């Protein structure tokens, strides 16, 4: 065996190779594109590895070693940074205090000045590399953890190569090629120690042979792998993984829906998930954990990636956001069936939007490709208009109880779209044909048939219409009972291409993107439509007066809602520190209040919630939107890739005539562009008057495709039947949950009971069971007890079970210590004894409790 160096019994090659590995990892940081590192990180890494080696060899006490390492590391890095920090002062001494203050500020969350960022990042990276180098050496030479020693620099290298703009796979190859001889030499050292303990002699030149052979292996392995095709895992497994991920997500959703249904209907208040779930509700708070997993690919000619809208929310609960549509919508129709508040649209069938929301907008079409199982929602870039796939559009509804609608040729288009056709027919009719059930009848029979047919259609949508007319036979008022959709108020859009409600490929979405400039928005006024005022001024009782006071204070001097929105947006961007690791607000606290006054940190959902609530507190309708902020353009895919990290929440404020306008209150995100030069392009928000009676009649009213089997009319109002059926009893969830807990508990109990019996011979397993049963009966085995003594003790304690216990012990003794072991007959008799014993278990436990 090789002659042992007292300092490096593992051979001098081990520290040399390890320090080289750390040096490579540190060098990867240096060239990894981390801004402009002002210190030689590679040198820091090598020195750290040397330091760790020396400390480990000196056998310094662990805690002292770590403390020393930290102090020396921070000291060395600080010194190196100070040497380069000319901007902090003339001499080194002058630079110390500014650097300290600067670090304190950074620690307190203040954004460093741009010219100081290099220092900060250099400092941080230097310390990280120091710690990696030190720990790699220390763990290997002090603890003998080879894997940790190699993995730490390896991990640092991978991180840098993964995020570096220019990948350098040769560094990884070099690391692998050096790590293999290192592992081989260290393994030999470990074996040599074993051989020394066993006093086994060996050849003296074994170390050199190990190094030669392991180097050959390293070259072979590195050559093989670097000639292999890259991306094989993606090609081979990515589709499988996506399918698996989709299935998993789908199953989770189904389970979630089932549980919600079982609880007696979905509730927006109960256990909402994070905002990234794009569900009907979400809770605010807790650390944000988003990955770089690609979610959506968007191809558009717009020249930049748009904000992708997934869901809007109107109800602020104090802890999160939810949709109020379910409460507003009467899900049980007069025919007894249950419907959801979604309308199904054919491919390319547009949502009829009124002039309230279409002013200053241009059509924009984009191609959306869901990735990674994200095909359960249709994304739009602003206000949704249509998609080239069949969709279900979730929107708000108005409940009408003999609601009068004044009707004339001028105001026909002001009617809800569902009533425009009947309105048009009545306006075209001479209603002098006598009084009918619903009102004066048309004089012409053909016209009356058309009216009756339309009334039947409306009846199919559970709308009852009657009307009155003037003495000359002209309709003047419609009276409507039932519920009608508010097409202007789209909350979310879902694909209905397949039975499972998911999109498998790409789809095109046409949206109306706002081009309104600041000047136009400032002139929009505050004449809000009724549905806007009803839904988007709601505030939770938890909203504190100081929140309202703050909103008023921040917007003091603002003359218009737009100015108010801009001031609040600016205030939040400047005041709240962006932090994805925020803590949950305390129970009972209002999230917005907590964010504004207590924590003053948060991420997008905190910013957007705060802005929406503050705007509402000022009486300006606002809502919170979730989706994605613009992704990066990918040359290979020819589109913008939206990753999970792009998931975002922002605020939309309503401006009459212009609809919902997005604001970006999140610090760090670029402000929404509203170019003043676009003022001239803004379409007038005023709806065009109806050109003629004919056009009024032929205007394509909102005509979602009938989805309910009960409704035959293909162009009828399209209430989508809900999966809820008649609902399930409310007790089902707690009982089912309890049952599940019992089943899981029983499973765990069974596992824990049988786990330690694995691999035991039958007689030993039965004896072990006897011991367990004995403990339940209060008979614990003594440390010096033989099995037979234990059986006697058991018999004394539980006389009725004594015979069975003795039989089990007798078979155990024979099997363990007898010359031939126990035969099948004996084992069977012991099994029978065990079953008898088990039957007496309740009595034993009862007896124990009684005594």
């Amino acid at each position, binding site marked *: 065996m090789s002659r042992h160096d007292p300092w490096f019994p593992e051979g001098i090659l081990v520290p040399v190779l390890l320090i080289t590995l750390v040096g490579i990892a540190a060098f990867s940081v240096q060239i990894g594109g981390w801004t402009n590192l002002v210190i030689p990180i590679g040198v820091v890494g090598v020195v750290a590895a040397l330091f760790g080696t020396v400390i480990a060899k000196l056998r310094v006490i662990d805690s002292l070693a770590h403390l020393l390492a930290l102090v020396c590391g921070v000291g060395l890095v600080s010194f190196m940074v100070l040497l380069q920090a000319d901007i902090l002062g003339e001499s080194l001494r002058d630079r110390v205090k500014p650097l300290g203050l600067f670090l304190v500020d950074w620690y307190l969350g203040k954004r460093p000045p741009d010219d100081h960022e290099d220092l900060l990042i250099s400092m941080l990276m230097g310390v990280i590399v120091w710690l990696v180098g030190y720990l790699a050496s220390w763990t290997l030479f002090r603890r003998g953890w080879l894997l940790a020693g190699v993995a730490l620099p390896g991990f640092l290298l991978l991180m840098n190569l993964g995020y570096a703009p220019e990948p350098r796979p040769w560094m990884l190859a070099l690391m692998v090629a050096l790590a293999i001889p290192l592992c081989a030499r260290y393994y030999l050292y470990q074996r040599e120690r074993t051989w020394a303990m066993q006093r086994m002699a060996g050849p003296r030149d074994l170390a050199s042979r190990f190094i030669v052979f392991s180097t050959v292996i390293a070259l072979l392995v590195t050559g093989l792998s670097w000639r292999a095709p890259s991306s094989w895992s*993606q090609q081979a497994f990515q589709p499988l993984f996506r399918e698996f991920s989709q299935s998993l997500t789908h199953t989770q959703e189904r389970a979630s829906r089932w549980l919600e249904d079982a609880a007696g209907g979905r509730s927006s208040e109960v256990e909402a998930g994070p905002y990234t779930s794009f569900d009907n509700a979400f809770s605010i708070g807790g650390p944000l954990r988003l990955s770089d997993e690609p979610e959506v690919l968007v191809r558009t000619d717009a020249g930049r990636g748009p904000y992708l809208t997934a869901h809007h929310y109107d109800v602020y609960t104090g802890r999160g956001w939810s949709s109020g549509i379910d409460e507003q919508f009467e899900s049980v129709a007069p025919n007894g069936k249950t419907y959801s508040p979604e309308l199904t649209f054919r491919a390319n069938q547009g949502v009829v939007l009124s002039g309230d929301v279409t002013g200053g907008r241009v059509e924009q079409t984009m191609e959306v490709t869901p990735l990674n199982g994200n095909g359960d929602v249709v994304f739009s870039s602003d206000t949704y208009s249509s998609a080239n796939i069949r969709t279900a559009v979730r929107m708000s509804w108005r409940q009408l109880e003999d609601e009068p609608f004044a009707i004339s040729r001028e105001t026909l288009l002001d009617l809800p779209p569902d009533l425009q056709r009947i309105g048009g027919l009545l306006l075209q009719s001479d209603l002098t044909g006598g009084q009918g059930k619903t009102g004066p009848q048309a004089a012409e029979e053909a016209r009356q048939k058309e009216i009756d047919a339309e009334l039947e259609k409306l009846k199919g949508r559970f709308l009852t219409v009657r009307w009155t007319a003037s003495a000359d036979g002209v309709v003047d008022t419609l009276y409507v009972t039932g519920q009608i959709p508010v097409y202007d108020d789209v909350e979310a859009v879902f694909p209905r291409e397949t039975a499972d409600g998911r999109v498998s490929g790409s789809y095109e979405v046409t949206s109306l993107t706002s081009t309104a400039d600041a000047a136009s928005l400032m002139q929009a006024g505050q004449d809000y439509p009724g549905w806007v005022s009803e839904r988007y001024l709601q505030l939770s009782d938890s909203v504190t007066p100081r929140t309202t006071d703050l909103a008023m204070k921040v917007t003091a001097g603002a003359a218009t809602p737009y100015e108010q929105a801009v001031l609040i947006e600016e205030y939040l961007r400047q005041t709240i520190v962006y932090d994805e690791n925020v803590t949950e607000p305390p129970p009972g606290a209002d999230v917005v209040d907590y964010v504004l006054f207590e924590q003053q940190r948060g991420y997008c959902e905190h910013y957007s919630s705060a802005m929406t609530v503050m705007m509402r507190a000022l009486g300006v309708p606002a809502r919170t939107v979730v989706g994605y902020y613009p992704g990066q353009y990918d040359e290979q895919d020819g589109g913008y890739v939206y990753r999970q990290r792009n998931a975002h929440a922002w605020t939309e404020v309503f401006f009459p005539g212009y609809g919902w306008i997005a604001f970006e209150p999140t610090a760090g995100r670029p402000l929404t562009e509203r170019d003043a030069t676009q003022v001239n392009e803004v379409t007038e928000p005023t709806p065009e008057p109806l050109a003629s009676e004919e056009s009024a009649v032929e205007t394509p009213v909102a005509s979602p495709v009938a989805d309910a089997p009960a409704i035959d009319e293909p162009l009828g109002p399209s209430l989508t039947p809900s999966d809820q059926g008649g609902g399930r009893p409310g007790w089902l969830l707690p009982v089912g949950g309890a049952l599940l807990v019992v089943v899981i508990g029983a499973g765990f109990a069974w596992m824990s009971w049988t786990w330690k019996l694995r691999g035991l011979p039958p007689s030993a397993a039965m004896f072990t069971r006897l011991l367990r049963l004995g403990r339940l009966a209060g008979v614990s085995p003594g440390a010096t007890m033989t099995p037979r003594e234990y059986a006697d003790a058991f018999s004394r304690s539980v006389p009725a079970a004594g015979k069975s216990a003795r039989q089990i012990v007798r078979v155990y003794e024979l099997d363990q210590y007898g010359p031939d072991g126990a035969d099948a007959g004996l084992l069977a008799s012991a099994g029978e004894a065990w079953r008898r014993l088990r039957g007496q278990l309740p009595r034993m436990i009862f007896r124990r409790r009684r005594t």
Partner: protein
Amino acid sequence: MGAFKLGILIAGLFVVAVVYDWSMLDKLIIALVALVVIAWIWSRLSLRRLGLTRSLSSDRVRAGEVVTEELTLRNHSRLPKLWIEVRDHSSLPAHQAGRVVSMRGRAAEAWTAETRVRHRGRFRLGPISVHSGDPLGIFQTKKLIPVAHELVVYPMAVDVSGVHLPAATMSGGAMHALNPAVSSPTVAGLRDYTPGDPLNRISWSATARRGTMMVKEFDPDPTSDLWIILDLSEGGQMDLPNDEEPTGALDSVEEYIVAIGGSIADRALAEGRKVGLVVNRAMPVRLDADNSQRQWFRIFETLATANAFGDRSLTEAIVAESRRLTRTNGVVVVTGSPETDWVPAASALVQRQVPVTAVLVDAGPAAPRSISPLSEELATARVSVSRFPTHAAIAGAREPVSHLAT
């Protein structure tokens, strides 16, 4: 770095590569998988086409002697073997036949393992297991080579020249200095030949007369019968501190008794006397008196594994043997017990003119009770007493003793 940890690492990297679409990890995964495959193949090949031979210098030695074993490992494969760990699973204490070997293709490696045996008994040399693996320790492999020998270690020889061996009181006898070709010049009769009888005892004339092979029986020498009674009753035993080589084997009174008994038998047989042996314990062992070479082996094979077991008083043993003892016999009792209850039985033998010598193992200060009272009582009963002090007895045995009867 075991295969399990490496497997976990590869699986983790694979998941990360797939989930995060990280193509650079693919190469690393391939490298690690290739490493695992190479290591596995390496480990499978590392113990193939190996041969091992082992030879022992002697399968019978006395405690304190050195046993030599030669081992040869042959690599019949063309592939070199980077490291092979040869582990010996012998039951012989301190036997170091294990070794680490690195071999080229078609090469052999031989080595010698010398072990000084300290304890008597029967030991197994072997089997041997060979261990090897890849150079990174990812996979290990081992193979058991079930080659084993039995080694019998006889009791250590101690100096018993000072012990008086009782001779019979009958006249006409004289002790021979050397082991004679025949035990007695007086032919007592003829019997049928049995395999193993020496040729010089064949009576050719009687064979010619009877037409079948006949051998002569000789009269016993009146001075030759010596009965050795070893007291291996558990009550009289105790451990003794003794780490010295080569007498470390004498680490208990029991070992002294056995060693003294063996040495006396050795001496008596060398003088041509018939020697019988009684091992006194709960399950006593008795060997009839004989002066042949086979008797030497019988005695020493018995003593190699004799150990204290249960309690049986010396009185009982002496009384049981006294029926067979006559004036033609001498008795040597070896004991370490200070108990005096057997003195009357010994005295009775003396009164029947059976000479008795008591060898008393004197543990000195280590003993809980002094042996002097026993010694005095025996002297009073006209029993010849030899005290064998444990601390002094070693002196005579420091020189390797190896005069096995041949």
